[in-house]
């Protein structure tokens, strides 16, 4: 009899709530029952309230159970889990779970499905078909396809990827680089981590395609040190890809070469800013560079460099495998394709929702997310990380679209959404935005380095009710100075959460003072 295939995620978040113990228990308890089981450690499906999520393979597809605790494994086996029998933890066929079924998994198609380091799984599910297609195209055709797809940078800025690649392609240089930004430091984001842990070959393939497109033979991926599991999985994937000739001196047997190097950050948020990341890769302090010159003109070691986020590069292979039109036909306005939204914080059904741009903020938080985990009303959501705006529920009709968010004084960023219930004090959140900036500023620009420290002090005085009107005016002025006088988004966007908290939740800046008076 064939062994029953059972999937238990190896994703760091799934492990953080006990998936290793569950995997061990499944092995132990199935041996005790003389059952033949083949355990596969997959990525996570991204439904974290159901983790650890155990899946059993059946002829009709995979059947899910979750959340499973290690001590429940014996009971589940006795109840017939290996035959996909009903149980109070049984969720039915995984693909039919409404939360998953309604998504469009374009970039995340394999995450949670495959064994992340199985080359056979990767190729069987369409892996490498993008790279193979690209090998028959001219660099200009490759870049034009990316431009036609409408793909924009997933790291937050939303810059059109094809235009960036075109700039590097047009540069005349013997040496060019692809630099993958995997320094995912924003709170409320974990899609890069999940992808690197769940489908690392996709990042490798995307970088190789970028190299062929612009004529770069060297690639660097810069992963933050807070992600040890992602570092280990990416390192293994790069080794496997090299050993099997997917990359290296001869990409898939052609005379193209692509050498991929992995570098690890060292606990600096600002190194997620592209020029600070380049400085760090060169072995220096992560101090940002003034632009121009753009990295596409003079980037890593002064050479033309494509700097793209993990998800941007990982979206490239399926664009080539399925055609630019398959991506472009999704989305709204100038926000084409899908975005991997991340539902985080105080939320009942937290995790990944990959769907086309145009879905509203409210649909994500209320329909997919199920509201708060605490059961209290949602009061505020922060979209786009620590430098993104705080929005009230009255803005839940906003479509997830770069331009619509920008017009509303907010930003989609990388699509991370952090939910707060009605116990949140927005004056504290505004203060934290300044505190975070003070902690993580690289120190190059005075408005950021000094302004953030002064911002904390001013907000403290406002909270204390000390000369409130004058200090509110001072804070507004300080925000203007930081926004206009900083070279990068750290100082430039820290005013966004501060101003939005003030604009949408002014009562929180009055309350504390009233108490003191």
């Amino acid at each position, binding site marked *: 009899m064939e062994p029953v295939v059972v999937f238990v995620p190896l994703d*760091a978040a799934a492990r953080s709530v006990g998936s290793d113990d569950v995997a061990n228990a499944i092995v132990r308890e199935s041996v005790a029952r003389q059952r033949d089981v083949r355990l596969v450690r997959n990525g996570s499906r991204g439904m*974290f309230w159901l983790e650890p999520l155990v899946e059993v393979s059946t002829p009709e597809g995979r059947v899910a159970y979750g959340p499973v605790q290690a001590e429940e494994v014996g009971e589940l086996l006795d109840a017939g889990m290996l035959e996909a029998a009903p149980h109070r933890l049984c969720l039915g066929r995984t693909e039919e779970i409404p939360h998953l079924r309604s998504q469009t998994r374009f970039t995340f198609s394999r995450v949670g499905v495959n064994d992340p380091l199985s080359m056979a799984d990767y190729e069987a599910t369409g892996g490498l078909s993008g790279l193979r297609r690209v090998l028959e195209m001219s660099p200009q055709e490759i870049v034009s396809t990316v431009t036609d797809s409408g793909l924009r940078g997933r790291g937050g800025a939303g810059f059109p990827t094809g235009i960036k690649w075109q700039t590097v392609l047009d540069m005349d240089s013997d040496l060019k680089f692809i630099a993958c930004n995997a320094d995912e430091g924003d709170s409320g984001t974990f899609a890069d981590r999940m992808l690197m842990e769940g489908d690392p070959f996709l990042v490798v393939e995307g970088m190789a395609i970028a190299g062929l497109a612009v004529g770069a033979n060297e690639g660097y991926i810069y992963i933050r*040190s*807070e992600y040890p599991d992602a570092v280990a999985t990416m390192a293994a994937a790069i080794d496997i890809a090299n050993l099997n000739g997917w990359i290296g001196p001869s990409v898939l047997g052609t005379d193209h070469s692509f050498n991929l190097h992995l570098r690890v950050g060292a606990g600096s948020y600002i190194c997620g800013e592209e020029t600070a990341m380049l400085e760090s890769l060169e*072995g220096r302090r992560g101090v940002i560079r003034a632009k121009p010159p753009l990295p596409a003109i003079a980037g890593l070691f002064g050479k033309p460099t494509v700097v793209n986020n993990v998800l941007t590069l990982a979206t490239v292979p399926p664009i080539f495998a399925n055609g630019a039109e398959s991506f472009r036909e999704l989305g709204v306005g100038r926000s084409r394709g899908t975005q991997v939204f991340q539902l985080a*914080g*105080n939320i009942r059904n*937290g995790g990944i929702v990959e769907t086309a741009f145009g879905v509203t903020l409210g649909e994500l938080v209320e329909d997919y997310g199920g509201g708060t985990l605490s059961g209290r009303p949602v009061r505020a959501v922060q979209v786009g990380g620590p430098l993104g705006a705080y929005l009230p529920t009255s803005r839940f009709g906003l479509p997830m679209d770069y331009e619509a968010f920008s017009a509303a004084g907010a930003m989609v960023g990388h699509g991370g959404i952090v939910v707060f219930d009605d116990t949140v004090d927005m004056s504290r959140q505004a203060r934290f935005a300044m505190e975070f900036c003070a902690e993580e500023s690289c120190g190059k620009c005075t408005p950021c380095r000094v302004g953030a420290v002064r911002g904390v002090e001013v907000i403290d005085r406002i909270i204390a009710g000390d000369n409130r009107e004058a200090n509110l005016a001072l804070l507004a002025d300080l925000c203007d100075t930081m926004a206009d006088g900083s070279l990068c988004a750290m100082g430039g966007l820290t005013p966004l959460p501060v101003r939005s908290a003030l604009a949408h939740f002014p009562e929180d800046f009055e309350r504390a003072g009233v108490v003191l008076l």
Partner: protein
Amino acid sequence: MVSKTRGSYVPWSQERAVAIVERHRTEPGALMPILHELQDVFGHIEPRAVDVVAAELNLSKADVYGVVTFYKDFRAEPPGRSTVHVCRGEACQSMGGERLARHARERLGVDFGGTTSDGAVTLEQVFCLGNCALSPAVMIDGRLKGRVDEAGFDNLVTALKTEAP
């Protein structure tokens, strides 16, 4: 961030440090990989390690020292036998992360960056561990933990302290 398991650091060795530099010397931008490996091996980066790197790479000590001090991961002092990172990012704040951060300091009797007097635990703050749908999050010796409340934190720390050093 500590990527190693506890208690596996070796005493200072000039030869070992030179060998580490030697292994990375030809890599472009070799300084960061060198510093990571020095800290992985010795547990921290002390002044004589800075001297070795500067001499071997023909950099000024100020350059190397500047890089070491820029990055929060690089430590000048040896850490405790275990390192606990408590996340203070917004997602964790929304789930009581600041309460947990306060509790962690009180429970261990040290501020962030400090090491308990018995040398068992170094406590650090971190802004995001990428576990934002399972907040609050902590990381213990490179292992991520989710949905950690105060009682859960105490259990994790007790387990660390009762293990033999």
